[in-house]
């Protein structure tokens, strides 16, 4: 009897030690479903990533885009972004982007209202003819201004746009990452699945592998140089997309992020698209 108690005690102590050790290695978010329920765990990781970014309100930022072809030649694009947080589950964050470079499309602007269930609403402003044009948002998989980023890589990544499956946890650099497979649930995606690395400390994206319709690895996106704004909001300063099929790469360099700048819905209308910027 006493021997049984002793063995149970040792086992319990061992189990507690293991879980404490495991816990320290995996400082994951509290309340995450167990690995046995991979679907629930994958969704919870995506929700945690989303939750950590609540409350930024509105933001302005500049972006440089450096396109490099397989022989190493580069060309550059420069854009300015205005963003408005949308906390509803059915709608994504509103965005208005304006091109500064290349010079021949300077002033061209794009306004996007993303939705989960319905098609995104998009308007393009053409400065030479002063025309605002409602455009089709069906072009999800096409390249954005000749870069290795597709339109869908740019649009906001609402949780409900994907189905999730947790695969494993593994080290990623100095951090530990949840590795989650997500499958696009929206129409016209160019990907069958994406493998996403989200760190267990801040729940930020670290890497995404994109698999195309032929099920081969098409592109890899690496997030780096994260910076914390207002003590709460992590933003990567650099994103590198590598196309494994063509050898082309595109680097996004984000600069001059500012939050709570006083933008409102009035700054994200088709009328505001026409204004000088």
């Amino acid at each position, binding site marked *: 009897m006493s021997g049984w108690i002793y063995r149970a005690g040792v086992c319990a102590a061992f189990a507690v030690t293991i879980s404490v050790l495991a816990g320290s290695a995996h400082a994951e978010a509290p309340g995450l479903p167990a690995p046995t329920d991979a679907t629930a765990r994958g969704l919870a990781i995506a929700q945690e990533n989303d939750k950590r970014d609540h409350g930024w309100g509105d933001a302005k930022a500049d972006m440089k885009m450096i*396109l490099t*072809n397989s022989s190493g030649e580069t*060309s*550059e694009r420069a854009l300015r972004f205005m963003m408005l947080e949308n906390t509803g589950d059915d709608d994504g964050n509103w965005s208005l982007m304006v091109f500064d*470079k*290349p*010079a*021949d*499309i*300077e002033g061209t602007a794009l306004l996007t209202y993303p939705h989960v269930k*319905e*098609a995104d*609403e998009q308007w393009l402003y053409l400065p030479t*003819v*002063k*025309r*605002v*044009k*409602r*455009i*089709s948002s*069906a*072009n999800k*998989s*096409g*390249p954005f*201004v*000749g870069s290795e980023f597709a339109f869908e890589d740019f649009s906001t990544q609402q949780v409900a746009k994907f189905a999730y499956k947790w695969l494993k946890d593994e080290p990623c650099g100095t951090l530990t990452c949840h590795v989650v497979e997500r499958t696009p649930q929206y129409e*016209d995606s*160019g990907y069958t699945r994406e493998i996403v690395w989200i760190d267990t400390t801040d729940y930020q994206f670290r890497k995404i592998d994109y698999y195309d319709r032929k099920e081969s690895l098409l592109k890899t996106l690496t997030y780096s140089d994260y910076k914390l704004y207002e003590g709460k909001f992590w933003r990567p300063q650099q994103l590198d997309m590598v196309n494994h099929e063509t050898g082309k790469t595109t680097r996004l360099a984000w600069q001059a992020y500012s939050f709570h700048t006083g933008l409102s819905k*009035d700054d994200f*209308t*088709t*009328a*505001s698209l026409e*204004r*000088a*910027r």
Partner: protein
Amino acid sequence: MRNPGRASLLAAIVALAPQGVHADDLGLRGTIEPELRVFTSSASNPQQRDTDISVSGEVTGKYMWDGGDQSLVVTPFARLDQQDYRRTHWDLREARYGLVMGKWEVRLGFDKVFWGVTEAVHLVDVINQVDIIEDPVKQEVRLGQPMLRLRTTQDFGSFDAFLLPYFRERDFPGPQGRPAYDLPVDMSLTRYESSRQDRHVDGAFRYSNHFGDIDLGLSYFQGTNRDPILTPTLSKDGDPVLAPFYAQMKQASFDVQATKGAWLYKLEGYWRRELGHEYEAATGGIEYTLYGVFGSEGDLGVVAEYALDSRGLMARDPYENDGFLALRWTANDEASTSFLGGAVVDAETGALGFRFKGERRLGDDYRLSLEAYFFGNVPRQDPIYSISDDNYLQFRIARFF
């Protein structure tokens, strides 16, 4: 720019410029674009030539202050032409002050406005005069229009009111110009229905909104018709010429687009009252885009539109019963390469028109473009008959700085 009215308005706008503008709020950019035109058939008029070299330049200066809520934009444009003294011209495309106050916006000065949804013909777009010398066939280049514009964007949509105190005459090519009518337009014989002539104050309103995948615009315009009636007459020297007459008109119009996935459905039209007559015109069609076609990264777009005018062949607009079909290839590459090929057929007369445009960027600061315009099977009664011997190729290199 032979009109003192424009110069004084510009002076007033410049006087409104704020003091002590920060360098950050100042933007300056420009374009220089040499051009070669080659006409493939010999001219009907001995003064016309088969080649033409010209160069155009445009500069935009922009000041913004008050957190971007106040702005000044000035865009002068000029062209020097080897053959046609009328094509050597300049214009203030924009010279305007803008003020944004939350849901309200005011603009004052030379400005441009675009109304409508279709691609081939722009029927409801009547605020700005066409720069027919710059863009004789497509007619998408417009002259700056002096205006006071008040706009508000509310939950019920966007509402615009325009006060247009001064009318801009259409500039026509001179006797050496091509493409041109067989008879030159003598602008010294210009007449107006209004006794106030080009000082008639025009006005317009527009409501626009979107409801899900539907975009809607309703507009009203009252004032001088930008499109003149051309009547054959004799010049002071006794030469046969065309004399422009600008009538007063009232126009109510609508434009609507439905965006359903890769399909766009477009329709626009107007009802007009002019010189005691009423007439209507409408145009509409579809635009469909195949994304990533043939396993490439390029898109292939198809535009099919039809235009109808109740005046029939009496219409001054050449597209009175015409069908359009165009294919647009967008490569989505680093150089933004694109090709557009289009055809127009007049269902009444059988006249054909063809258009081709190819363009791409060269490096970061240059853009090459090649355009071609050809006409075929044009009978004498067709409105484009007199320019149908002006088939041409146009090659341009734009340098941006």
